[in-house]
Every structure is written in C-alpha cells, then in structure tokens.
C-alpha cells in the first residue's frame, strides 16, 4: 500500500438516463470511488465545451461526460451532437497539450446503474494513472477564444 | 495455404496415432500448414487440474509461451484433442480476463525464462478450422470417393462444445459442424441425440462401472439408429469408445459392434487416400466390415485378427450384478 494520487473528476449527467443511473446505483448501494462529483444537465446535448474547460482549469483532473445510448436520447438525437462536440473537444485539448484521455464519454441508460458505477471506477483509475493535471500556463489561441467566450456568456 | 501453430498433445503421437496420421495425410488436400510447436508439454488433462490449479495453468502457460515464441506468422494455435483445446483455451482466456491470475502465471513462466502476452493467441480446435477456415465447399471439391451408403453417428463429446469459452460453436447441446462435414463427404448422417454426451473421460480408470454405463448409453444409442460407425474428433473419446467397448460388452453381457473412427480418417477416405495411410486397421473394433459396405478394402495383415461382427442379441438385458473384483 502506498500513498496514491486521488484525482478530482467532474461528471456531467443527463437528467433522463445517466443521472437516473446514478440514482439507481445509489438505491442498489453499488459502491464506486468518491472522486467523481456529478452535475445534472437536461441532456448531454446541453454540454457546452466551455463547461469542460472550466472544470479542468478550475482544478478537476478529469471530466466524465455521460448520456443516453445512441438512439435512446430522450430528445431523440441530441446525444449524437454531444458525441460530435466530444470528439472535437478532445482534439482541442490535445492542441492545448492536455491528455485527451482526461475527458471521456460514456453512454449509460437509466437502467444501467451498475454499468455507470463500473465506468466511473475505470475512469478514476485511468485518470489516476495520468497523474494530476498540469493546466497549461501559456495557452494557445484556442483556449484564449474559449476564455473570451466564457467572459461573453458570463457578461 | 492457411498457416497455423499446432499442438498435438500427448495422445496424438501415440494412442491416437491414426488421428495424427490421417491429419498429416489430408492436410495438403485442404491446404492447411500445421507448424508443431517445439518441446511442448502435457496440457494437464483433467487430472493435473484436480491437484494444483495454478500449476496446471503454468503447465499450459508454457505451451502458450512456446507457441508465441514460434511466431510463424499465425496467431492461431490448433489442437486436435478436445481436452487439450479446452485447457489451452481456458488458461489463455483466464490470462486475458483475470489480471491477478495473469500476474501469477506470468511470474511462474518467468522462472523458466518464458513469457506469454495475454490475448495474443487464438486457441481453436481442428474441427473448427476445417469447418470454418477451409470450408465445406473446398472439402466437397476434394471428394473423389464419396462415402455413399455409410451410416455415421457424429459424436462431438464434451470439451469441444462445452464450456466453449469463446462461443465458437454457438450451441453447446446440438452442434452441427461435424454433421454437415460428414454430409459433404457423402455419408448418411444420423441425427444422433447423444452427440454431445460424455464418453466418461477418465472414469475408465477411476470407476469402470460408471464408465461402462456412459459408454453403453452412447454405443447402444448409435446402434439403435443402426449406425455403421461413430465418428469422433477427440483421442480420449475414441480410446474409451473403441478400446473399452469389449469390456463394456462383457460388463453388460451385450455384443455391440460399433467401430469408432476419427473424422480426419473419413475425410482421407473420401479424398481417395488408402486405408493404411490413414491408420485405419489400428482400431480395436475393426472398421473394415463397415467400410466394405462402401467398397473400401483394408488389407488384413494391417490389423490383428478380429472376431466377425455378430448381430447383437434382440433382448438388451439389464446390467449384470457387479463382479466382486471390481469393488475395493
């Protein structure tokens, strides 16, 4: 046994599937590591890339994005949009010099509490192996834009 | 020419010599290249696993490591014996799926300066590659002497279809690969209900009366369907059904006469090879009378004198009381 790095992970959940999966994991008393802290959105389609960057810049070591399985979106097809953004986002992160593996997309239906708990466990280990996130001090243009966007929306 | 790594196992070169010979005889016809791994060791059968499980895994692990070492451009390791196939597959899968076991086996192998990368080999049974890789069409195209009129009971036994860790046979109760293969060879295939029942494995050694019971179920079953012979794909099954058939008859006071050949032997016959080359004549229950039906001559001197096959008694008779000497 040795002292090990405990990552902080922000998890975005869909109100209709993965958030209920989390509820189910709770009701079924399925254990998973406490490293992950969940935020409820109405749909994975609501996930603004800014949220992820905000989380990572604010001290999170990883971000877990969860949504309904393809074809099972409560809003018909919005999870596909989430998927597209996710792929784009990982490229952006790579450009910023951040391991894209720090952001992960997982599908989990309302019935898949066990699966969600397992995926959380897996992701925590993955991020733990990556070690603490060193948020780039000098950021390329990409993030500058994002920062600007953040100010805009905050304004 | 499909390349494969080949694990003969302890039986093939000896008690299942005819299996080995017939395979060697047909491998060019069906364009398969079997690369025997060097200095392989026993797979542990069922006995080793009964004593030390981790050691048994290590035992098999050595074979996997040697196979990987051989690296002949193929990652498929083929075994002809169902027990060998299952044991190899079992360890390979546990190493792939169980990190802890993988660590332990790897550590053991290291002591012998060997290593095996979990998940790097595909373990398959000979029937699997002949049925799926070679394919029925190719086989049909090689048939020069169809086995027309020969009634065969296809017998799979257990370990090839159960537990079937990689779900290659789909149906652990009612597989059809061997049935279809025999049809392609021109034989009349009976729908053998006991096709996946047990041949009694090593019960012949541990408890003969249990073994005779299981053998009796199979042989009487095949006989009821008026099969000319049973066809097998495992040395253990063949040995039990063939070599112990006499004892079984004595035990039950029956006179079944059910020859048991390997599917590779029948393929060889259909492909036009001569019986001797295929090791036919080395079986206990002489197949020559059955084969005569389809005009296959087996030179007498190739096999010791055999009793003429008698038709079995009409009344089947219940088991005789146990002989005192059988009890401990």
């Amino acid at each position, binding site marked *: 046994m040795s002292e090990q790095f405990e990552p902080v992970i922000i998890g975005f959940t869909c109100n209709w599937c993965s958030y209920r999966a989390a509820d189910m994991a709770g009701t079924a008393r399925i254990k998973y590591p406490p490293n992950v802290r969940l935020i409820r959105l109405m749909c994975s389609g609501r996930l603004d890339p800014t949220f992820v960057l905000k989380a990572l810049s604010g001290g999170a070591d990883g971000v877990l994005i969860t949504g309904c399985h393809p074809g099972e979106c409560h809003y018909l097809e919005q999870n596909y949009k989430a998927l597209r953004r996710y792929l784009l986002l990982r490229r952006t992160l790579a450009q910023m010099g951040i391991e894209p593996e720090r952001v992960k997309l997982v599908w989990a239906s309302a019935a898949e509490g066990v699966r969600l708990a397992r995926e959380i466990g897996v992701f925590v280990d993955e991020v733990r192996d990556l070690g603490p996130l060193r948020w780039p001090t000098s950021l390329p243009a990409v993030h500058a834009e994002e920062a600007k966007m953040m100010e805009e929306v905050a304004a | 020419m499909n390349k494969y790594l080949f694990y003969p196992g302890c039986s093939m070169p000896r008690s299942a010599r005819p299996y080995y010979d017939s395979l060697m005889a047909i491998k060019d016809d069906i364009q398969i290249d079997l690369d025997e791994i060097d200095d392989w060791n026993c797979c542990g059968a069922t006995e080793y696993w009964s004593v030390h499980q981790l050691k048994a895994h290590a*035992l098999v692990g050595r074979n996997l490591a040697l196979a990987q070492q051989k690296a002949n451009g193929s990652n498929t390791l083929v075994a002809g014996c169902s027990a060998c196939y299952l044991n190899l597959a079992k360890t390979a899968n546990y190493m792939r799926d169980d990190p802890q076991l993988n660590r332990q086996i790897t550590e053991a192998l290291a002591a012998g300066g060997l290593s095996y990368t979990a998940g790097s080999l595909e373990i398959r049974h000979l029937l699997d590659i002949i049925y799926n890789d070679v394919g029925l069409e190719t086989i049909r195209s090689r048939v020069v002497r169809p086995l027309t009129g020969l009634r065969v009971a296809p017998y799979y036994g257990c370990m090839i279809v159960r537990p079937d860790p990689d779900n290659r046979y789909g149906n652990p109760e009612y597989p059809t690969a061997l049935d279809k293969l025999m049809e392609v060879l021109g034989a009349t295939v009976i729908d053998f209900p006991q096709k996946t029942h047990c041949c009694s494995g090593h019960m012949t050694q541990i*408890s003969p009366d249990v073994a005779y019971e299981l053998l009796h179920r199979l042989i009487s079953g095949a006989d009821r369907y008026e099969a000319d012979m049973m066809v097998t794909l495992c040395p253990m099954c063949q040995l039990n059904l063939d070599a112990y058939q006499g004892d079984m008859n004595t035990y039950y006071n029956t006179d079944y006469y059910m020859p048991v050949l390997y599917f590779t032997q029948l393929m060889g016959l259909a492909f036009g090879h001569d019986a001797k080359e295929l090791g036919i004549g080395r079986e206990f229950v002489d197949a020559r009378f059955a084969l005569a039906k389809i005009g296959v001559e087996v030179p007498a001197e190739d096999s010791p004198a055999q009793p003429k096959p008698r038709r079995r008694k009409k009344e089947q008779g219940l088991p005789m009381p146990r002989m005192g000497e059988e009890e401990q």
Partner: protein
Amino acid sequence: MSAMPQVGTDLKPISYLEEVSRATPGNSRLEMCIQCGTCGGSCPSSQDMDHTPRQLFAMIRANMREAVLASNTPWYCVSCYYCTVRCPQEIHITDIMYTLKSMAVAAGQYKETVGADLSRTFVGYVDNYGRSYELGLATRLYLRHSPLNILSKATMGLGLLTRDRLDFTPQKINNLEQLQSILNRAEQIEEATA
C-alpha cells in the same frame, strides 16, 4: 474536518463458501446458487455420487467442510461441463469441482482414493517427464487398486501396443528443467496465496 474511523473492513473469519469461491480462478459465482438442481439433473454420473453437486453447494454454505472434502462427488465429475453451460446462475460448477478435488488432496481428506491416486500419479509423470504416460498410469493404478483386474487391462494395453498406439517407455520433453522451475515457482505462489 473531523477524521472518522474507516467502515466496511470486515474482520470476521471468511466462511467455507468464500474459501472455496476464492480458491477458484475467476469469479465462480458459487454464492449465487438457487438450488434448482439443473447440475444434478444434467450430470451423467450423478447416480454414483454420494451427493449431487447441488447438495454439495448447500453443504458448502452450511460450512460442512469435512463432509464436503470426504464426498466422492468431485471425483466422479467427468468434466463434461453440462452443468456449467446449463446453470441458470452461470456458476462455474466444473471449475469448482476441480477446486474441491485439489482442496481434498491438499488436506489429504478423501474417501475416493482411486481418483485422487490417478491424479497424483498423473501429476507425477507430468512433473518428471513433461508428458503423460498411459501405460504407466494404468498399470500403476491397477496394481494399487485392483491387482486382479490388471490382467484384463494388460490385454488392453497389449492391444494398444500391437496396434502401435502405446509406448513401453514414457516420452520426455527436452527442456524438463525449464518446466520444473516454472512449476516450482507456481507451487510457491499457490502456497503463498493459499
């Protein structure tokens, strides 16, 4: 923030059920048995077992260690895997039988001596030659357990010989030392984890 004691760390001795389950590679799912009897119903040799597999699992739950070790059931398992593929709870029954056999051998507590001796003899050959050896196996076994029967078996052995299907001498692999050092290491690990 106030530190609190850890919870959930169980200190009670593990049950026989857990013991057997842990000694079986992978997840045996033994604790999931619903006592439906599919195993006993499917088993080709269950008539000759003094307990059906299902009964054995109930006995394991009841911590009847000695009775389980003494049972002939595992030794009459023919490894046909019918129970394993049919079990509605996907319990690795055949693997568990192997575990029970090895436990019985380790504890030296088994009534069914033939099966155990066969296995031990077999292991002996593999450890010393790297290959199994049918003739030796059969003869040694029959000499020990049914000397009278050896004659009938001898004719069978003779049959195999005349058919060039048996060796007088066991085959030996070349790099036996390598195999033995692997097996020894494995044995050490086995003992360490036991």
